[in-house]
């Protein structure tokens, strides 16, 4: 049992919940982050193995000052944060570049801003614990698709930031990696069901036989490996059934 304290951002989504549960089951203490869904976050923290060891942190990641304050408060309550998993990503509108408006562009940048705010706030603490940072990236950052530019560009920006963190913080024994995901076999919140542009990706996937889809539990197990793999920093690992190739 590791006893390490890991902050899981976006822990109320299906992937985030599964990651939080997997890490708690393996002995991590988990800080469950939420933005709006406080009741769900409280319920999750209470249901995790090792209940009582975990924490809840509620903050809008797009608000840098609020993130700084919330992380400082968490570190004081909890004694510190050793590792970060960022599974938070806001809904991003699809559509052609010629159709972007400022509201859409702002929405697309929220995830990137949130990742930057979070990283900035937790890295000083990660240094003292030789910590690890894992960002859940997207295959659309490198395998491009018409209509999904805002989503892909935001993920690409956050992935680049993560890689730079790996170089800047490597001498401090802090590692940073990206787990690049394509479509996941989720029970709910499947973007392909909600948005025909995302659904059109499946046609490409079928042509290239990119099966099987990873399950949230498999994503969680891979996140945990990345958190613990001392050999790996500054990398993007693709868990997308070969979509990249």
């Amino acid at each position, binding site marked *: 049992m590791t006893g390490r304290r890991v902050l899981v951002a976006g822990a109320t989504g299906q992937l985030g919940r599964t990651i939080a549960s997997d890490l708690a089951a393996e002995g991590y203490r988990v800080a469950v982050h939420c933005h709006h869904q406080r009741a769900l976050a409280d319920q999750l923290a209470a249901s995790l193995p090792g209940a009582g060891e975990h924490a809840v942190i509620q903050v809008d990641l797009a608000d840098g000052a609020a993130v700084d304050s919330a992380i400082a408060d968490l570190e004081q309550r909890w004694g510190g944060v050793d590792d970060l998993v960022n599974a938070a990503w806001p809904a991003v509108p699809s559509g052609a570049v010629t159709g972007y408006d400022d509201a859409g562009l702002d929405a697309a940048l929220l995830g990137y801003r949130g990742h930057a705010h979070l990283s900035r706030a937790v890295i000083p603490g990660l240094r003292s614990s030789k910590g690890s940072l894992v960002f859940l990236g997207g295959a659309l950052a490198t395998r491009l698709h018409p209509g999904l530019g805002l989503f892909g560009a935001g993920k690409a920006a956050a992935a680049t930031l993560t*890689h730079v963190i790996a170089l800047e913080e490597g001498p401090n024994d802090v590692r940073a990696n990206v787990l690049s995901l394509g479509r996941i076999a989720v029970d709910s919140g499947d973007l392909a069901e909600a948005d025909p542009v995302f659904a059109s990706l499946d046609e490409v996937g079928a042509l290239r036989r990119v099966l099987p*889809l990873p399950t949230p539990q498999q994503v969680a197990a*891979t996140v945990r490996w990345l958190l613990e793999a001392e*050999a790996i*920093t500054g990398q993007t*690992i*693709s868990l997308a059934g070969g979509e990249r*190739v």
Partner: protein
Amino acid sequence: MSRFTGRVVLVTGSAERAGAQIALAFAAHGATVYLNHYRQADAAAATLALAAEAGVGERVLALECDITDPAASSDMVDEIVAHSGRLDLLIHNASTFAPRPFLELEQHDFDSSIGVNLRGPFFLSQAAARVMVAQGGGRILAILGNSLSEVWPDFAPHIVAKTGLGRLMEQLAVTLSPTVQCNSIAPTQFFRSDDGANDALRLLRGETPVSAGTTQVKGITVRETSIDDVIDVLLFLADAPASMTGTTLPIDGGRVLI
């Protein structure tokens, strides 16, 4: 029960050095491991002795085979299946790494490197994949080195062959999906396999060793790669989720980004 109990693994070029350590690591985790070599009977015997000392001797078996010969590779796979009933994991570790200036290269230098690093793995993958598809699953892993992201002046055949091997793994990831997962690792030099040629070149390029574990590259301190790092990642990829396929994972402390 250990992590790989019941699994059958073939590691090419594993009589000594990195391949031997990789083979012994999988055996230590419960696998039955076939240790391929060619004309290295003494080194293979020494590794088998190490396996016996570690208490895994009954699950490590040496197989001599010239993998550049497709018929011999096919026979080797047949022998494994005849003896163990299956083949779950193939690791392309065998490699040649002989520096020679481009202007002095001869055909046999090129043919030798392509033979061990690309042609051999191509047909051995085919023989292994036939078994894996028939049994309903399997994994193929290739050790590429950092040839995909760095170029070295005196290693033209090696760079070309390893790049081809990496692309072969990507191709097979799609061709053999969803039954067989194919991935590569791209560690930096971790076993001094070039007898120092790269060390000199690294210094020339301003890559200065800081300690046994770190090197400065363009002023940035990056982690060096160890055989333990390589083994950790291979063990992970050997039972990573099935949807992890077609990937190349650098083990370089982030050097690929610089």
